[in-house]
């Protein structure tokens, strides 16, 4: 086992190098580039342009730039963003906690709802509940996610007012037009603006809509997956044996079916975890969430290659790591699997 892990880790080094080369090369292909932002600026002299290109290293050959980047990254120097001139790690550090806060809450809620539903669905296959759950799971996959988010904002932020707060009396809809009415739910951001120490309640309020948006989407896939795995298991011989032994149905389900069905689900969860790091671009865009998704998108658009490389490399390391974790956890859970 230890050998196996070591071998995988050693293999991942050339993989990481390859990824960095490919991404670096692709970034340099994209027009736009770090200089794009300066383009419409009539106050820029030709000397300024030459100077800036030198500063960004754009006058050098791609391989020289890569070599410089790589030799710095080896010693742990991630460089500075071309756009904000802040250290790459600081940029990531400012956004990552926000992203993880949103993603972990959404992910946990998704699992807490989806796994029991999937299990129950499978145990009562073709029941009304099963049909309903299947339908809802498909609905979650069939709605374009940004459209759903916009509808959430329009309904819960624009149309519906908080009927308790205003001096205006009962005004639940924005069509009554009152200047001091508050929306029912905040339409974005992580906490109320202008508040120095937001309460937990306020933070939760701000998470309701984005979490709903994410959970709506993730729930379907996990419900279906859990259901599928459980169905796979309950036709196995050992379940039949357990039943034949006269174990109570509850015990059969919990001790045998659930446990065995969950094992592959855990693997899938592990494979999904690095995704939490990357954030959710659409959700962050619609709900003004200052997360990694938007940071990444901005740097991709503006050709901010030090930051882009930083995010891609961390992402790649996480993916490789969690892939390994998935395989190990699989072996741990299923004694039949041996890695040599």
């Amino acid at each position: 086992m230890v050998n196996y892990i070591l071998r995988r880790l050693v293999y991942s080094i050339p993989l990481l190098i390859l990824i960095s080369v490919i991404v670096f090369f692709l970034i340099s292909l994209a027009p736009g580039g770090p200089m794009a932002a300066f383009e419409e600026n009539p106050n820029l002299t030709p000397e300024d342009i030459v100077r800036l290109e030198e500063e960004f290293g754009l006058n050098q050959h791609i391989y020289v730039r890569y070599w410089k980047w790589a030799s710095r990254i080896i010693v742990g120097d991630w460089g500075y963003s071309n756009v904000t001139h802040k250290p790459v790690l600081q940029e990531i550090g400012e956004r990552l906690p926000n992203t993880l806060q949103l993603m972990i809450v959404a992910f946990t809620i998704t699992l807490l709802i989806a796994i029991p539903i999937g299990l129950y669905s499978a145990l009562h296959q073709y029941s009304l509940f099963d049909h309903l759950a299947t339908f809802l799971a498909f609905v979650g996959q069939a709605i374009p996610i940004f459209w759903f988010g916009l509808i959430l904002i329009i309904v819960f932020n624009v149309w519906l007012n908080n009927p308790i707060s205003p001096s205006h009396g009962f005004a639940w809809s924005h069509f009554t037009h009152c200047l001091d009415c508050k929306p029912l739910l905040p339409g974005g951001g992580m906490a109320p603006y202008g508040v120095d120490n937001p309460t937990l309640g306020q933070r939760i309020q701000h998470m309701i809509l984005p979490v709903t948006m994410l959970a709506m989407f993730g729930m379907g896939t996990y419900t279906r997956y859990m259901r599928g795995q459980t169905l796979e298991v309950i036709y196995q011989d050992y379940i039949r044996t357990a039943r034949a032994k006269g174990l109570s149905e509850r015990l059969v389900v919990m001790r045998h079916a659930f446990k065995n069905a969950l094992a592959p689900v855990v693997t899938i969860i592990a494979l999904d975890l690095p995704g939490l790091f990357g954030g959710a671009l659409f959700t962050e865009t619609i709900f003004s969430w200052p997360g990694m998704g938007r940071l990444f998108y901005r740097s991709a658009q503006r050709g901010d290659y030090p930051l882009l490389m930083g995010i891609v490399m961390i992402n790649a390391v996480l993916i490789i790591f969690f892939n390994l974790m998935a395989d190990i956890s699989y072996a741990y859970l299923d004694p039949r699997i041996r890695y040599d």
Partner: protein
Amino acid sequence: MSRTTRLVLILTLLLGILLLAACGTSQPATQEKPTEMPAATEAPAQQPTEAPAATEAPAATEASAPTEAPAKPAEPKTIIYGLYQEPDVLNPFIATQYAADEVSKMVVEGLVDVDPDGNFYPVLAKEVPTIENGLVSEDGLNVTYHLKEGILWSDGEPFTCEDVKYTWEIITTPESGAVNTAGYDKIESVECPDPNTVQIKFKEFYAPYLTLFDSVLPKHATEGSTDMTTWDYNTTGLLGTGPFVLKEWVSGDHITLVKNKNYRDYPDKPKVDQIIVRIIPSREVGKALITSGEIDILWDLTEADVPEFEENPDVIVHKRPGPGTERLLLNLADPTLDATDDPLNHPHPLLADLRVRQAIQYGIDKQLIVDELLYGATTVGTSELSIGWAKCDIPPSEFNPDKARELLDEAGFVDQDGDGIRECHGCKYAEEGTPLRLKIQTTSGNQLREECEQLLVEMMKDIGIEFYIENVPSSELFGSWASGAFRKHGHFDILMYTTSDKIDPQSHMYGYFHKNSIPTEANNGKGFNYVRWINDRASEALDKAGATPNLEERKAQYQIACEEIAKDIPHLYLYDRSEIELTRANIKGFKVNPWGRQTWNVEDWDKE
């Protein structure tokens, strides 16, 4: 260990790792900052004593107003300003985005500024130097500013001529990384005979001299490193003489600015306690948020948004004609060549023929676009300089499809195969049989522009020209020379976007229309004459306009340039853009400024 326990263990482990990562990184967010960068909370001098409590949640007041809460537990008066762009850095000399100026203008002031009517007014200077008041020499080479007395930086240090001199010195230092140095390089010296007098001597006449020093850097706070890009000043260390000071900047979320107690008009102004600049990822979301009242001011709307908000009694639409004009750029050079410097011998096969460009102009019903897509909220475009002192006088073009068809027939474009699109049969530049098919491109995701394009496609179809749309994200359209962007390198037929001249149009006009401003290999891609228009009369007029301090003379020269543009149609003006902002009905003192940043009079903003 039972397998259930193992399972639970693994799940907890995996989630735990991520949670650890979350906690682990939330600390470094402040710790990892280089030590010289004061974290937002460690700037007590800038904290308002007026209890920084909540506007939306009275419950939080007790919690967040610790020791400073005096007898008056009033909430701070807060205005939330929605920007759909996040500033990259706040240092005005390295910032590249309009949004950055919008924020830094609340903190950083210059010697003079421009009001909404296009007049310069003194800010840190006592008066605007002109030839008439003797502060500018007859040849325009010597400019003197008398500074107001008793001005303090927000940290209490006095503001003097040395700061102005330092500003010039640092941004003209090659390694500073400053990008907005045009004009400053024309200065020979800045002298300080006394702390409140600035004498500037130019090497050669620089027409827009008043636009220089629209921001002044604090010498005492930024001295040390000559590499500007490493300064704290760019982000949390921003320091100025303006009405507000920067309190915190939460990346991707918001920037909080609070009253500057060392401001010269304090405590009368500013009238509100804090301004929170909220970063909104898209304009559509911004429109939703101002409707629901979550933000008080929304930046930069289009004419198409006007009717919706004029109907809404909670929102006021602030609109004023701006210097921008939405136009088509018609490429005159062969688009298959890379950045040719010889467009006359390598003409665009279709567009290089003036009659084709004229036909396109005759074929466009500009008034229909204004009336239908912009709800009559603006005027049809006629020239580059649509407002301001240098405004050109050009009559609107005529909508006359018959004349367009005639011109195309005459130019040798006839539809012989009956597909509705004309082909070249004896035309000037194109090969025989080439269909009159042109690519039109603008920024993708802009609904107004896409609607406009689709109308253009139909109008052109009507006269036998095929326009086809290929829109690209703005970062790609406005890409740089070094990255090979197609606009710079001349690989396009027709582009559609807005560009705005500044209060002094010289650099803009020269950049877009002078024959020396064609981006080529030789000049390292400098200049905005993307259509590769060579017109000696216009170029000469622009040279003259840039060489004299006489405004009448300059205006006459710009008129000549505008007339040449109208005649040659390298740019085809569609409609004039207005500067449009929204505020909630209880915001007072907001005044749109088409020449600058909307925060130009932020000290007068108030909330009822």
